């Protein structure tokens, strides 16, 4: 067994109206080469003009990653030739990025881990290439889309940790609203650096570029651990190189070795003056940060006694988590709200393919529905019926219970009659129960509920049943 050390570099496109250095439209799923600015094509004489919103979002994510925010941020040029790079250089940040020395707390199974973030910087995306049999086509709609690159320290030790980190990071970015961070749309892409060693020192670093899904990150890491372990077992050396992950056969292939590594000849971007960021502005952004998923999960487990699974489900989307928190703030039991969301509501949203903000049953109504149960006005079973009616007829729970005359039976005499009837009809079950088969009680209560058509209060039914059985 070897010590595995992994560092990640994540590129994430920011959600803005215009591009990072031009007024071209940030929307590359349109028809090819539309809504471009001359800047996006690198025509002679064009100049970059930095987008305020891209800056705000870069700082926002930096804050969410607990980074030190630079007061004087700078831009640099990374020089290389590639057909998708119209200017022949990419504007990025190498000397003074927006955020440095950050960290992100993640859950790996039951454990917590602090993942150190080296830096977060802002840069521009390249054009996209479509490949055909004997030619490729260039589309510049993506050229200049704002990208943040987040670089971790080499502090992850397994594919599981890497994936947990990526999932947490994606959620954090979504919570800030900086990006939808959808890897299936190429909005989030990942480079993986991995090294193996026998002791505490770091082994030889192998880099894997541009992996486009979390699943492939996992596969690539696991393949590399296997490949490198086998080499080390045989006493062979690991080459310092860049490898490419092939998602069809799930293997990695050598692209170039360290000796051929490209010298990008970074130097300060002369067209963008040093950007001073005032403390006040940073504070304003920090204050605007929502409570982040790690903290929420912790709170849901420790304060509300939810299972880790449910807590994780609730925080997956900020809007769902907000819905949950608002409903309980109205005075509902967290456990009940969680159950309603995870069992009924998420299923409904999924089936209807809608978002929670389009969901008819606002927090107030869910609170109303749960209160009806808690006040014993309706039973849980009736509540499910009310829920369906509410969504079907777009009416509040109270309106539905009133119109349809749905209520829990509170008539003790009536309930006692049903209990008597069930006892009469099930002499054998009663016998079993009396002979020690205690779980038969649930069956008997169930029968009572059935006869009452779900209107009976199950707790009361159980109470009466016990009284009779024990008399």
């Amino acid at each position, binding site marked *: 067994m070897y010590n595995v050390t992994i560092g990640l570099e994540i590129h994430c496109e920011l959600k803005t109206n215009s591009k990072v250095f031009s007024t071209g439209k940030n929307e590359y799923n349109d028809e090819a080469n539309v809504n471009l600015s001359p800047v996006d094509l690198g025509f002679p004489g064009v100049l970059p003009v930095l987008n305020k919103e891209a800056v705000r979002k870069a700082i926002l994510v930096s804050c969410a990653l607990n980074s030190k925010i630079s007061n004087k941020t700078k831009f640099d040029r990374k020089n290389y030739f590639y*057909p998708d790079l119209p200017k022949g250089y990419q504007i990025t940040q190498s000397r003074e990025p927006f955020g440095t020395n950050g960290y992100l707390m993640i859950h790996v199974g039951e454990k917590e881990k602090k993942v150190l973030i080296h830096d977060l910087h802002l840069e521009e995306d390249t054009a996209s290439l479509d490949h055909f049999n004997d030619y490729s086509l260039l589309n510049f709609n993506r050229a200049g889309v704002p990208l943040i690159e987040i670089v971790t320290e080499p502090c992850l030790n397994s594919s599981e940790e890497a994936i947990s980190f990526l999932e947490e990071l994606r959620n954090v970015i979504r919570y800030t609203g900086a990006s939808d961070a959808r890897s299936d749309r190429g909005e989030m892409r990942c480079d993986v650096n991995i090294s193996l060693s026998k002791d505490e020192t770091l082994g030889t670093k192998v880099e894997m570029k541009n992996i486009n899904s979390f699943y492939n990150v996992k596969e690539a890491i696991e393949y590399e651990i296997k490949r490198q372990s086998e080499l080390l077992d045989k006493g062979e050396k690991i080459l310092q190189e860049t490898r490419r992950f092939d998602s069809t056969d799930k293997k990695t292939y050598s692209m170039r070795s360290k000796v051929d590594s490209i010298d990008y000849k970074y*130097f300060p971007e002369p067209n963008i003056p040093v950007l001073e960021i005032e403390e006040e502005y940073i504070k304003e952004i920090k204050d605007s940060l929502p409570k982040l998923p790690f903290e929420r999960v912790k709170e849901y487990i420790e304060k509300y006694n939810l299972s880790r699974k449910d807590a994780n489900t609730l925080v997956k989307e900020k809007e769902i988590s907000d819905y949950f928190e608002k409903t309980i703030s109205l005075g509902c039991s967290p456990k009940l709200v969680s159950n309603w969301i995870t069992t009924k509501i998420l299923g409904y949203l999924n089936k209807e393919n809608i978002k929670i903000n389009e969901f008819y049953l606002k927090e107030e109504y869910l609170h109303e529905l749960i209160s009806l149960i808690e006040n014993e006005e309706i039973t849980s079973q009736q509540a499910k019926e009310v829920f369906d009616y509410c969504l079907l007829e777009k009416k509040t729970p109270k309106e539905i219970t009133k119109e349809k005359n749905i209520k829990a039976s509170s008539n003790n005499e009536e309930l006692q009659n049903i209990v008597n009837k069930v006892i009469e009809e099930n002499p054998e079950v009663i016998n079993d129960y009396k002979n020690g088969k205690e779980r038969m009680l649930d069956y008997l209560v169930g029968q009572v509920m059935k006869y009452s058509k779900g209107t009976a209060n199950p707790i009361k039914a159980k109470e009466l049943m016990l009284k009779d059985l024990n008399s």
Partner: protein
Amino acid sequence: MNIEEFRKKIDENGIKEVFNESVKISKERQKDVNAFVTIMDSFEKSSSLSKISNIPYALKDNFSTKGILTTASSNMLKDYIPVYDSTVYKKLKESGAILLGKTTLDELAMGGTGTTGHTGIVRNPIDTTRSISGSSSGSAAAVRMGVCPFAIGSDTGDSVRKPASYAGIVGFKPTYGRISRFGLFAFASSLDTVGIMATSVKDVAIVTDILKGKDENDMTSLDNDDEIYENLIEKDVKGLKLAYIEEICDEDNNKEIFNKIITSCETLGMTVEKVNMDKKLLEAVFAAYRTISCAETTSNNANLSGILFGPRAKGSTPDEIIFNSRTEGFSELIKRRFIMGSYVLRRENQEKLYLNACKIRRLIVDKTNEIFNKYDAIILPTTKDIAPKLEQEKEIINDKFSVLENHLDIANFGGYPSITIPSFEKDGMPLGVSIMCNIKKDALTLNIAHKLFEKLRGEENV
């Protein structure tokens, strides 16, 4: 001929007549001067009431003009039709000025001889056996030929001021950022400045007033200073303090002429004092300029690849296309500069070469600022001597250089406004004198230059 004289001629003969005459002369002199890459064959009459409305002008062929061929005098762009307007061109159009043509430059504005453009050598219209230098060669020549009262150039080291001086006209490099660079093909972005050439300081002021101002397309453009330079040039200069740098003036081949200029300044009530600057520092200007400008230009011109514009060479992979297009498109001189720039930026050289050059830049600017703490302006001969014979102009550096021939770069290092005006003639060829002031003091620079210009004209006529 200045703007006012052109105006008079237009009033007398009509715009069409004046435009056609300028076109005719320009074409006639293409053979011996070669000032233009493109000469326009039509114009649109403007109803603008600006001072330059319907006045013809020439534009260096490295300013983006939508729909009009713009080559930067390079084979790499010999067929390039821009699809957007530079801010400078847009403002001139809005003011109603009439574009006479796009002028020849040293390829991609690099080099200072006027000999490296893809359409051939530009010659000095005063004496076509002599150089006009560059890189704004054609713009200087056009004004000198009298086909337009002003022309636009770009100045990265001395590219407006030196040819203006050799052509015996006024050449102004304003403060860095005073005029938007949007649409000016970049040479070295931290040094590039739009410059104006004309036959008088007053005309330069008029055009600068029109071109200056904050531009949302250029982050380095300065906030508006809300001054009208044309109105400020007549201010009394009495009591202003000028300095000249002894180490630079020591190399002057025409000291008696410079002394005469100093006397004129004193007659105007200004004081002129000698200051000193470390000779070693001045000698470092050349290497620092080369290093910084080559580093930036290598990167700035990486967009010239044949993929999106410019001639596309053959190749079986995109890399081959880019490689062959660049091999065929750039001249040797340009390639040498690119290689130099790339070398100084290499990981292993960057500290020693590129960063040290930027440090020298700081030292020179600090030292210059010290002078500006005590003096209003620095006055120096623009060049060591009159325009050289063309056969002496070489674009290969291998010899000892002079600090006088490189001092104009200082204005670009610090972004200072700097202007050259014609002083006296020698052997029938003009000499120039330069005034440089602290950053953002464009009005003061023009004011001193205008007063001195008028004074020297007066003396000449006596």
